[in-house]
């Protein structure tokens, strides 16, 4: 029996009204199994980011249902959705989105603090997450003092510190050079494989898409293709071969 962690049924979402209405999602049906690494690909305006937002509960679909780890999101109030995101989801953004006024450690710790973890627990998790993300000896620095790659690693550490079951990544390598981007993808893949964290990643990069188990092609608000990657972990090998 499969353990479905994300289930979308008949999800539609449009913006604007009347003739100005733009359909972002046009009847999405999707199931993601726990521990899968799913890549979402498609041209700009195809609805990839909207799909990610709907999965996260940031956006409410016009019709259809979204069930996350057994919880129907339509039954939750705004603050309950926030709690769900804090506890079950991790977010990685294209522009890192670290808070400039906080140190690296503080950027990782604040979601834990708001989740109500004790201070000792917070310190432990921060240390582990940073180590797992490959950020060592940078805890006291500020985001402006570290490289882009390190910033994205810190963002990943922040995302995994709360122990989420789902990691949502929106173009995580978009602002990085290819070598650094590859390292980030390796990290995400590592987390997926070792921690069984379900990853849903939006990307334009075909090579990045090969890091996942499945690649969903999104176009005009629909999933037009759902391709399984036969050789999991092929991504890194393929990249090395291409070089």
């Amino acid at each position, binding site marked *: 029996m499969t353990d479905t962690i994300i289930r979308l049924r008949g999800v539609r979402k449009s913006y604007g009204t009347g003739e100005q209405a733009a359909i972002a999602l046009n009847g999405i049906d999707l199931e993601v199994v726990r521990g899968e690494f799913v890549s979402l690909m498609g041209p700009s305006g195809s609805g990839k*980011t909207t799909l990610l*937002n709907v999965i*996260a509960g*940031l*956006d409410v679909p016009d019709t259809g249902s979204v069930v996350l780890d057994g919880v129907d999101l339509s039954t939750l109030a*705004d*603050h309950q959705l*926030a*709690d*769900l*995101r*804090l*506890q079950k*989801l991790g*977010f990685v*953004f*294209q*522009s890192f*989105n670290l*808070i*400039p*006024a*906080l140190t690296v450690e*503080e950027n990782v710790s*604040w*979601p834990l*603090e*708001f*989740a109500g973890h004790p201070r000792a627990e917070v310190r432990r998790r921060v240390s582990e997450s940073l180590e797992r993300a490959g950020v060592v000896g940078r805890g006291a620095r*500020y985001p402006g003092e570290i490289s882009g790659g390190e910033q994205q690693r810190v963002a990943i550490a*922040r995302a995994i510190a709360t122990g989420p079951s789902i990691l949502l990544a*929106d*173009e995580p390598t978009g602002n990085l050079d290819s070598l650094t981007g590859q390292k980030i993808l390796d990290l995400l893949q590592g987390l997926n494989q070792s921690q069984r964290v379900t990853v849903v990643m939006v990307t334009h990069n075909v090579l990045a898409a090969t890091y996942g188990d499945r690649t969903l092609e999104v176009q005009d608000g629909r999933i037009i293709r759902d391709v399984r990657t036969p050789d999991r972990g092929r991504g890194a090998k393929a990249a090395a071969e291409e070089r």
Partner: protein
Amino acid sequence: MKALLSLRFAYRHFRSSFSAMALSMIAVALGVALVVAVRLMNAAVLQGFLDTADATAGRAALVIAGDEGTSFSDQIATQVSAVPGVRLAVPLVRGVAFPDDNSGELLTVHGIDLANDDAVRVYHVRRGTDALVDDLIEFLNQPDSIVLGRQFAESRGLTIGNTLKLVTPIGVKPFTVRGLLDPQGTARVLNGRLIVMDVAAAQPIFGASGQVNQIDVVTDPGEDIEGVREAIVHILPSGIRVEQPAVRKQVFRRALAAFQTMLSAFSLLAMMAGFVVCYGRLQGIFETRTWEIGLLRAVGLRRARVFTELLKEALLLGMGGIAVGIPLGIAIARWSLPVLAQTTALNFSLPIPAIAEPPIGDAPLFGAMVGIAAALAAALAPAARLARRSPVAALSMLGRETPGAAPISRVSVLAFAAVLLALIAAQTLLRLPALGLATTAMMVIGAAALSGPMIRGLIGWFQGSFGRLSPTARLVVAHLKRTPRGTALTVTTLGIGLGTVIMIGTLGWSFERSIVTMLTERYAASLVVTSAFVRGGYESAPVSERLVRELAEVPGVAAVAGEQHRRISYQGASVVLAAFDSSCFRGSTVCAWRLTRPIDGALDLVADGKAVVVSPSFALQFGAKERDHVRLSSSSGDVDLIIAAITPGQPESAIILARDVYVRLWDDPLITWAHVATTKEADPNVVADRIRRGLAGKYRLRVLSSAEMIQYFAAQVREAFSLQHLLEIVTLFLVVVGVGDTLAAAVATRRRQFGMMRAIGLHRTRLFRMVMLEGMAIGLLGVLLAVGLGVALSTFWVQVQFPALLGWTLEQYVPLVFVVAAGTVTVALCLVGALIPSIRAASLSPVVVLRGE
């Protein structure tokens, strides 16, 4: 050249960021409004007093007079008439009276030789050969005859032949109206509140027989006025001066200049607060366009052109500010003018001048210059910083905050502190108004410069002392610590604004408490009797000294002391002469004097007319101390008196002496206050009732307890400082504007951060709380800076500037309740200012914000 002068490019940016600039425009507008209003009011009040001086002088080329309110022999007029070049020497008796209807309306009385038509025409211009009165013989035969200003007569429904009862120094007397004065000359200036009577009839009522207050001299046409003046000087007794009316106007100007400088300083402080708001906002606005500037430079615009275009935007902001500020300032001036006129009269014991609409003069132009200068000055540093940035670096700054200026070095801080201390020391010695203003400005600039280090230090201490802060508080503290520039500017605005309010409040409170303390300590008598009418400022109308004898005969009265106050000229400066009957110096039933380092038998010597006591202001102003001598000159002669002691508490420069000596020198039989000590067995309330029944009707008196008298003076001081409330309201409004503006900008620049936090899982309420907490933290930091600055400024003004400007020595009292209340209100207003930005932050849709990813 055309492109350089064109505002089109700047206007487009200005229009697109209008909502961001609007609050800065309001700040500039408020500052300009206050500057314009104070300038207008100062000019109008000064002109009002000068007009009064002009009208009083009439067509006279020279005026012979003693000190204010003093009189001299009318025989001097005869002697002056004989001086070559003098065509006319017109004796004049001046006094005040009140209609006996409790209206309190002050009527100026001129006693002149009505039989001499030329004399009459010196003051009262009439059409053609119209006579002032129809039947001069009847007029002169009836000592109750008066000529009344037509405007006043019409307002009371009086016409020729009617009777008017007036309260005079010798009691209530009926007078018959036998002529009306058209609203020209003196009558016009006084709005018809003028009575003209024959000098012989006026002397026994308003002065003394054979005594006049003033002699006006009309010279022969073409005569050298200065030569005639010098000839007159030789025949005058000491204590009487002869001067041209223009000189008297200079006296007014000098007397008012210091007071008006103080008001101008307050308005400029408010303008500085507006400048800081403007600076902070423009910096924020320009910073968000760093990348755009990089684009312009990359396309080919020169640094200087970029700098100029940014300044043009500031110019438009300034123009917007003055467009609102100038009409607002004119409206404030119109509304506040009566208050300022009264305040000025109060401070200088002058009758309140009739002031119509304030003439506009150069106030709008001055306000425009100040507003534009403030806006341009606020833009200079941010524009220069931005224009210097390399295009490549600027283009990479899209969405990022530009690094701040280097922190101020310790050497600079020490150098600044040294300059400031030197200025304070210099002002203590030199007492120059302009130097005091410069020192005040430097103190404010110093506070502004130190706000950043103060914030960092305080936050660091707070973090260390209170490690277990909530996550929300930790985020707020981290943000405030790492963005000191934005925070510092808002804290500075708060600090300057509230600091000014605290300073003005402390000055008013110090003055009030100094007066109250002095009165409480000095007057031991249970009752005070005075006229029910006010002559000018806080001075009651004078009453005949006969009242003292009549009060002494009232059952239950143990002792009575009359008190009279006058301003005299002493060594070229104006000092107060306070004369008390000797019972005030003997024993302590009527008065109790606090003296510092008195000589043996000090008070007995004063009572005997051999010594005086002086105020600390007098001692400071003239470098006087115990055992020094004071030489008082009058038309009746000179007297040399030893200084027996200094009596603290009296703010003004004052000489206190026995009334016997005063009357001997100045022949003034009037008093302003009578202090009544009751016997041990008598109930003061019963004695007060007896006085009211027996004497109040005759003289129109008020009988007050000591506490009531003290409250009366305290209320007068509060009224004198009532203009501070206007400054407080404007300043606190600027505070709300500044804080709301800063937080709104902070929310706007951190939209993405807030959107990310919401996406990760932060509740809306937590975001709301975070921004509100930021507002409160800014408020608390601002209050701290304000208290420090306010106390420093008020200490400087009480200890140094007030003595320099006004010759007042006050004891400093910090109004703790007021400071706490003002601080609480400020923090509350910060929360109000933070409300909308907090709601906006909490309402941010993470989807909309992150769509920009």
